[in-house]
């Protein structure tokens, strides 16, 4: 029964993707005939789709891992402050004029910012893997980096810069090309490898902390490797698409509502679910006719929050009955 639902999810994702590629291109079905349409498909739509899939996988997967290892259903990829730290570094770089000839270096600066945030988090949390300390240190870091971002926006040299930076912060997949995919794909893979090697460690988090401690893990080393993988994912996502909120929180909860709780399966299906949601939300961004293109992060939060509330309310009613 559970697997039937999982298969339905995969089918749904296939439909979403096909629909997404065909958006606004009613004149063709499998492959366009005119060279202009081919260019639009191959150089604009396809990289945007792949980026949406990768970002969705990252956000859904990272959300699930954080919810499991921090033993907290409210955890989401932003909770460690890594995404805000990455965003801050990029905004600062933009402020100091890192555009034009050095723009290629921007993603790497962002990644460095993410890794620096992780190092700071690790020191603040006392080099340990205590979930509560990690959450508190993460919240403090995120607040600090958030203040930094506001400061940079405050000091923006002109209204155009201000608007551009704030829009970027909301998260978007517009105007992305294959170079962004080339950056994000290896990072996604590397993060996935790091996280997959820690799967037995992640699984063991179903037990309470006291029982968990006797399982013979070197908790500090394992946590650090896992956090490194997650940091690569989250920083990669932020540098390629800005800070997209809510999907990392929503996707694992949707998967749990399908009846899937085993940590490994939960993470894998949250990746699929995150990818489906992000593609669907991005399709909506493309379809809604507005004067300027809406930002992905805005739609994600505006749709995701009520959806989560609805689902949770319904589930509580079922449980109470």
């Amino acid at each position, binding site marked *: 029964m559970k697997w039937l639902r999982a298969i339905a999810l995969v089918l749904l994702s296939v439909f979403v993707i096909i629909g997404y590629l065909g958006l606004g291109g009613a004149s063709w079905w499998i492959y366009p005939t005119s060279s202009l349409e081919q260019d639009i498909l191959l150089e604009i739509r396809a990289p945007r789709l792949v980026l949406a899939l990768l970002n969705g996988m990252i956000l859904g997967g990272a959300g699930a891992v954080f919810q499991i290892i921090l*033993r907290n259903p409210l955890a989401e990829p932003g909770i460690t402050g890594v995404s805000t730290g990455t965003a801050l570094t990029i905004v600062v770089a933009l402020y100091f004029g890192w555009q034009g000839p050095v723009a290629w270096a921007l993603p790497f600066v962002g990644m460095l910012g993410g890794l620096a945030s992780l190092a700071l988090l690790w020191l603040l949390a006392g080099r340990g893997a205590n979930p509560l300390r990690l959450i508190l240190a993460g919240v403090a870091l995120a607040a600090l980096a958030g203040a930094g971002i506001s400061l940079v926006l405050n000091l923006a040299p002109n209204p155009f810069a201000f608007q551009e930076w704030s829009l970027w912060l909301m998260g978007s997949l517009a105007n992305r090309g294959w170079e962004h995919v080339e950056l994000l794909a290896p990072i996604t893979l590397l993060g996935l490898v790091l996280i997959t090697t820690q799967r*037995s460690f992640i*699984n*063991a988090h*179903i*037990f*309470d902390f*006291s*029982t968990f*401690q*006797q*399982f*013979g*893990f*070197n*908790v500090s080393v394992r946590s650090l490797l896992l956090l490194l993988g997650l940091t690569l994912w989250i920083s990669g996502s932020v540098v390629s698409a800005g800070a997209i909120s809510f999907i990392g929180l929503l996707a694992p909860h949707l998967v749990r509502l399908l*009846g899937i*709780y*085993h*940590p490994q399966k*939960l993470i894998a299906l949250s990746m699929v679910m995150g990818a489906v949601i992000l593609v669907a939300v991005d399709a909506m961004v493309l379809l809604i006719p507005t004067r300027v293109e809406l930002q992905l992060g805005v739609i994600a939060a505006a749709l995701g929050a009520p959806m989560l509330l609805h689902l949770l309310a319904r589930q509580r009613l079922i449980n109470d009955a």
Partner: protein
Amino acid sequence: MLELNRVTVEARLKAVSLKLPSTGLIGVIGANGAGKSTLLKAIAGQLHDFTGEIFWQDKSLTQFTPRQRRQLLSWLPQSPTIVGRLTVLEILKIGAVNLDLSSQQRQQRIATVVRDFELTLLTQRCYQELSGGEQRRVQLAVCFLNEAPLMLLDEPTSGLDIGHALKLLQDLRSKASQDHLILVAIHDLALAAQFCDQIVLLDEGHLISFGTPNEAMQNQHISSCFGIELEWFCTDNGVAILPFTKPKI
């Protein structure tokens, strides 16, 4: 041999020194707050703020790596929790981690605990839907997966009906005779007297007495720790206790 040398945990355990053999079922008894759980936690490596030393076969427990410690001891907390709607078999598979075993041996180990704790009919059931006693048996099964020479069980019989409690203590006793040292914190004095080879009696963090049930559970010790008087009824089938409060004169 398990040797405790002046183990002190601030305000909870006061300079407890003990030498325990490497086989046997040891009952740790005492009133609420006497330090039973604290003593077991200190040995299990769950506490980092204790002073004193603990040796297993003349090697300090702090010298064991996490993985070596995993093979050496198993620990059942007083009220463990397992989150998520997982089946009993999924839980056992996740719990059978970091054992120095081949995957085939690991399967056998799981099959053994499933049989020993009568979980055969429950393996595909969701843990959250089990009764309290059934959940306790699953927790115990997870704890027994590593066949550790040193087992620390904090109130293993809590939540078990009298039939399963008796069976568990009989199993622990027979396991203890095959080269295991098992420490149980236990509230039921009659069961402790009946099954344990030796008793550790604690009161407000102090070691009051240690020895066979006859030696360690003498009435003057019990009455000073629990504030009650006891009448013992011993037959070949077991031990019963009639507790009564001391009449005030």
